[in-house]
């Protein structure tokens, strides 16, 4: 077996489809998490968005990766609403802009895309780490992926290391006091609950790893 070095556009399509499936499957779980510290709509919001994304994918199926990701971003912005819509929408848009008209990407491109996505979320959300948001799953995930890649290991393995860190980051939101988003209105009462956005971010990372692994 050849070492996996590249991800093609049709893998990206498969990744987005897998995210949509995973979000649908975990819709009620995400919404439940949001009921505890938010307004009980996170799963509904993302599922609504990714359902429309699925209907849009055929129109970009033969396009470059940047175009695909930007289409996902625009669709999310236009359909999700709430906080997660602009945040994930911006993330996919920025990733798409960084990747541009490539048909295949490698680890370096991925790192660039991830970092642009994270930077988009942070500037749109005026937020950083430790505020009990999706950032707390995404940022450690990217760091671990980057570190693994620079240790010279295979793309899939590096992604898997990133996923482990992402999951740990998600779990680390449980004891946190929320200072951004709706959960922050609860003050102390936000402590003890896992952040819904961190959870959906983890589900997306998991979908990426699973797509690459196939």
């Amino acid at each position, binding site marked *: 077996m050849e070492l996996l070095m590249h991800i093609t556009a049709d893998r990206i399509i498969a990744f987005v489809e897998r995210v949509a499936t995973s979000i649908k499957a975990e819709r009620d779980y995400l919404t439940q998490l949001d009921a505890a510290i938010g*307004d*009980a*709509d996170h799963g*509904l919001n993302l599922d609504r968005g990714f359902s429309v994304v699925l209907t849009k994918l055929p129109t970009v199926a033969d396009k470059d990766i940047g175009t695909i990701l930007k289409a996902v971003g625009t669709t999310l912005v236009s359909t999700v*609403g709430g906080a997660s*819509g602009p945040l994930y929408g911006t993330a996919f848009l920025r990733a798409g802009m960084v990747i541009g008209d490539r048909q295949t990407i490698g680890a370096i491109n991925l790192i660039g895309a991830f970092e642009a996505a994270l930077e988009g979320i942070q500037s749109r959300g005026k937020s950083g780490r430790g505020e009990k948001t999706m950032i707390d799953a995404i940022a450690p995930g990217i760091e671990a992926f980057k570190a693994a890649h620079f240790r010279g290991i295979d793309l899939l393995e590096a992604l898997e290391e990133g996923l482990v860190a992402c999951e740990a980051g998600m779990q680390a939101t449980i004891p946190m006091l929320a200072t951004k*988003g*709706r959960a922050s209105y*609860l*003050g102390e009462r936000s402590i003890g609950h896992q952040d819904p956005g961190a959870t959906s971010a983890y589900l997306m990372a998991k979908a990426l790893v699973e797509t690459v692994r196939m």
Partner: protein
Amino acid sequence: MKKLINAPDDVVAEALAGMALAHADLIRVQPDPLVIVRADAPIANKVGIISGGGSGHEPMHGGFVGRGMLDAACPGHIFTSPVPDQMLAATRAVDAGRGVLQIVKNYTGDVMNFEMAAELAAAEGIEVATVITNDDVAVENSTWTAGRRGVGLTVLLEKIVGAAAEAGADLATLTALAQRVNAEGRSMGMALTSCTVPNVGRPGFDLPEGEIELGIGIHGEPGRYRVALAPAAEIAAMLVAPILEDLPFQRGDQVLAFVNGMGGTPLIELYLMYRELHKLLAARGIHIRRQLIGNYITSLDMAGCSFTLLRLDDHLTQLWDAPVLTPALRWGH
């Protein structure tokens, strides 16, 4: 879940269709992206006033579209902020060349979606200003939160700014007026029961028989404190104290007092609460110059209420008294 609905996914669209049928003289509902627009928009020479937010707060905001208040409202899904496409469509529909003011309740999602819409509108050459309402004193320390939430004051602000826009004020003047109203008003709410989002099917939180939530928002989220159910007089005191301290309101102040129901609380209880509020303010030498009592900014079927106090001067009072003709508020025509 017991509601007068068909499929949970269709609640917002069907209710809006009902509104459009009922109030065709005042509003029209544009589909895809969904926007409620004043029937005669755009109004020549008038700054457009738009607002929006998640649904489930009816009559806010759609019920406030019409003469002397909003030019358009953007309804999101239940408790979910609308998407930028809606605000952009609203902005285009109401812009008459003098610019558009966005009134946004301070929630991360609303702020970000309106912000993206404003960027898109600006790119089209439409002048857009934004005012964010954040009147909820339940959110105490805004350095550790996304900031205070926009709640009941939003209704009063939309009426007052809408009246000034109708009278021909320009965008800068309206923006300053809106900021002033926001600075002069405070709110605090409580829940006797949770509410049920149709797509979720059960109440957002459990509230046992003997307990209430103090410091709730308007999205079925739990409040800041859970306390024992108390007589109306005590509940009123718990709501009014943080409001008065915060601004602070002073002896001799004249206020607009707004007793708002959360959707499932009948008017008889709201009038009873108004009496308590009146007593508490009178004891502090604060004079209620105008009042509004009813279910205007709601959380679906939640039982509970909120108090909003807005300090009035003659100018604000005149704007409050000015004619308004919308589905939910109408007087003076």
